[in-house]
């Protein structure tokens, strides 16, 4: 399968939810057509009720399409054998809450016909990968926090070393650290050549990891393209450089105005809140201990 070859092909996919009497209740998807290519991270975006999760469930065969065709890894969505190469993380981690982490991965490993040795090795590797604390691994999932449940959910999705990973709201419920780990994991999967389809409404997360996105609204595809292409402002120019003196900044402004630039603003860039948070946590880990923090709000 070449890099540009589609792993997922969706053609004119529609889904109408019906009531008990078969009367149409909601049109959740309307003639959706899109491709997801091998090795890319594809994001499905949209507000609640836009049809993201419905699309994912249709792809997995959990729902049946009203119209349209789906091909995943060259097979139909109803074909169970496709699941050999797919990993799925549901929106909520719908795992068996009475099992512990090892039992959970062992159970899902058995479903892939893995041997005991393979299951054991893979479980240890995945639990390390998702950074689940060793002391938590023997506890039943019902005692887990949302973040821990999410981590074990990811581990079960990767138990078979899948070629295609489908993640439904992968960062929901995670703290910034967990969220960063998840995004790193997705980028790592991409590096390994795996295809990732994720749906989310956390735009920053999508922007950080996705190569291409599709925005759904009311069950219809509104936008689909590469993230950088979509976000590029053709009518603006950005210049990045190391720190300049005030005189140099004035000179740059003058030069820019001379060349017809309007709305010129030369300033120091601000970091994202996520970067600040991660930096603070990292420093706290490196240098544990209580510190007095001055409240600067009164000074402003």
């Amino acid at each position, binding site marked *: 399968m070449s890099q540009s070859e589609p792993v997922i092909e969706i053609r004119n996919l529609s889904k109408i939810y019906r009531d008990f009497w078969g009367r149409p209740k909601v049109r959740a998807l309307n003639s959706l057509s899109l491709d997801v290519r091998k090795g890319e991270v594809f994001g499905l975006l949209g507000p609640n009720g836009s049809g993201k999760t419905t699309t994912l469930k249709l792809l*997995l065969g959990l729902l049946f399409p009203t119209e349209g065709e789906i091909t995943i890894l060259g097979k139909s969505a109803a074909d169970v054998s496709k*699941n050999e190469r797919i990993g799925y993380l549901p929106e909520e981690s*719908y795992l068996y809450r009475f099992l512990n982490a090892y039992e959970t991965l062992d159970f*899902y490993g*058995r479903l892939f016909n893995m041997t005991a040795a393979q299951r054991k090795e893979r479980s240890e590797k995945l639990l390390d990968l998702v950074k689940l604390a060793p002391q938590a691994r023997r506890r039943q999932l019902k005692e887990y926090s949302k973040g821990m449940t999410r981590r074990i959910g990811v581990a*079960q999705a990767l138990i078979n070393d899948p070629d295609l990973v489908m993640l439904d709201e992968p960062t929901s419920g995670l703290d910034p650290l967990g969220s960063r780990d998840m995004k790193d994991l997705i980028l790592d999967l991409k590096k390994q050549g795996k295809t990732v389809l994720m749906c989310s409404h956390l735009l920053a997360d999508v922007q950080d990891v996705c190569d291409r996105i599709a925005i759904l609204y009311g069950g219809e595809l509104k936008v689909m393209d590469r993230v950088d292409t979509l976000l590029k402002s053709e009518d603006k120019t950005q210049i990045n450089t190391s720190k300049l003196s005030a005189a140099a900044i004035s000179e740059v402004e003058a030069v820019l105005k001379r060349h017809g630039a309007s709305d010129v603003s030369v300033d120091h860039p601000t970091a994202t809140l996520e970067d600040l948070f991660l930096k603070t946590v990292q420093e706290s880990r490196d240098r544990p201990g209580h510190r007095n923090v001055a409240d600067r709000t009164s000074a402003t």
Partner: protein
Amino acid sequence: MYFDPAENFIYPPYAIYNWMIVAGFFTAVVLVVSLLTLLVSKGSSGFGVFFTELIGMLKDVFSLSPRRIWALTRLTFMEAYRRKALAVFVVFGLLFMFAGWFMGDSKEIQPDQVKVYISFVLTAVSWLTLPVVLILACFGIPEDIRLRSIHTVVTKPARRIEIVLGRMIGVSMIGWLVLSVMSVVGYLWIVRQIPQASQELLKCRVPIYGLVSFKDREGNYGKEGINVGDIWAFRSYIEGATKSRAEWRFFNVDETMLDSEGNLRLENSFSAFRSYKGDMTRPLFYDIKLFNIEHPEISYTTQPQPVNEFRSKQDIIPRKVTVDDVQYDILNDLTTKGSDKVPKGILGIEVACIDRDQYIGMARSDLFIRMPDRPFWVGYWKAIFGTALTVLLVSMIGVAASTMVKAPIAAVLTAVMYILSGKNPHQFMDQLVAGQVQGGGVLESVYRLVMHLGPSTELPANPAFTVVQIFDSILMNFLWLCKQVIPRSQYFNMPEYVANGFDVPWATSLIPSLLVTSAFIIPCVMMGYFALRTRELESK
């Protein structure tokens, strides 16, 4: 209540016939219902989906993975364990800790008391196990759908058929575990409750039944004897001091039917009927004649024996008997030697009532050759085997039902099927279907009720009533179909044998029940497969 093992025998050809009926009709019902459901939900494309799924199911059968099935079995097992389903042992423990208080003084044990103990244990074990199995079977898959845990299973390579099988096996295994532990405890409890001196009451008789016919007072053969006015026409009576006789023929009589001392043990449970009071302290008497049916003159008649009313009685006949200084060997002289007309090993036994104007009543099962007894534990575990098959049946039906409807409805459906499997509901359904119940079908009965018409009143012949009759006949046919697929408890009444001191025969009880249970596997698995494949596994 009198228990007649012979009445409960299920002969293998009938069991095979029943297997075909259950497997055939139930499978047909599942297929038809699945097709109709698909046609309703998907329109004309339902045909295509139906055949695609049918072929898919066959493919899945050939690609079943024992490891995946075992994974789902283990999951079911762990789920039950972690959710405290085994707390049923606490109820069981309490029951047995205090049961002895209410079940009489254990120093003086009567035979009937032994029956009560055994019945109590086997009933308690069954009644505590089956509800647990029912709940686990009916709530497992619906809970998975409700909590959406099933999403993480069906998005793996697990086939729907494996999910159904895994659940069925898992629930059955839990039931069997519960059953085994309770049975061991129950067995020990029975043995401990009965004092050492009365341990022989724990018996496991192996009866050999013959065929009976009757002779009237003139000595003419007939199928039945005299009816002395009993409403329950189970027994026929022979008149004393006449030519009236009850005649049995036992087949394949050989050395294996003799006890360790070489005697032929006959056991009877005759009943006495007095036409006059006489001396009430004196029992009625009978004698038994063993004879060669080819040469009736070769015979041996016992001394007159008193009838043990309401109790069974044994007559020990030595292998070598002497009649008028001529010694006969029961097996060599009184049984047939085999010829073109008569097979080998037939023994004739004739019973006569000696007292004039008095009557002795008997049925086919009231006289049998008692083979060497088996140890009590053999019969006990065979009875447990019968309950184990019921566990399997309930788990199969429960899991299959739970793939189609919500858990409480599946539980009610399974429970209703279990209740209807009883002897009386089946008899009633038989009568209804055969048109033997007065008052007609459903609509006709309602019409009669509303119009205050008795069951024997002729109804007017008009078009409306014709419609009623057509509708009723459709319902009757539907009932007939239901009757075929509802299990029969007659197949699983092994505890009755043991409680009454009989061994459970393999050929006429255990193997037929195993066969009939296996008949439910195909349709139940098929039902589960179709339901899980053709429905969207979303909690709604």
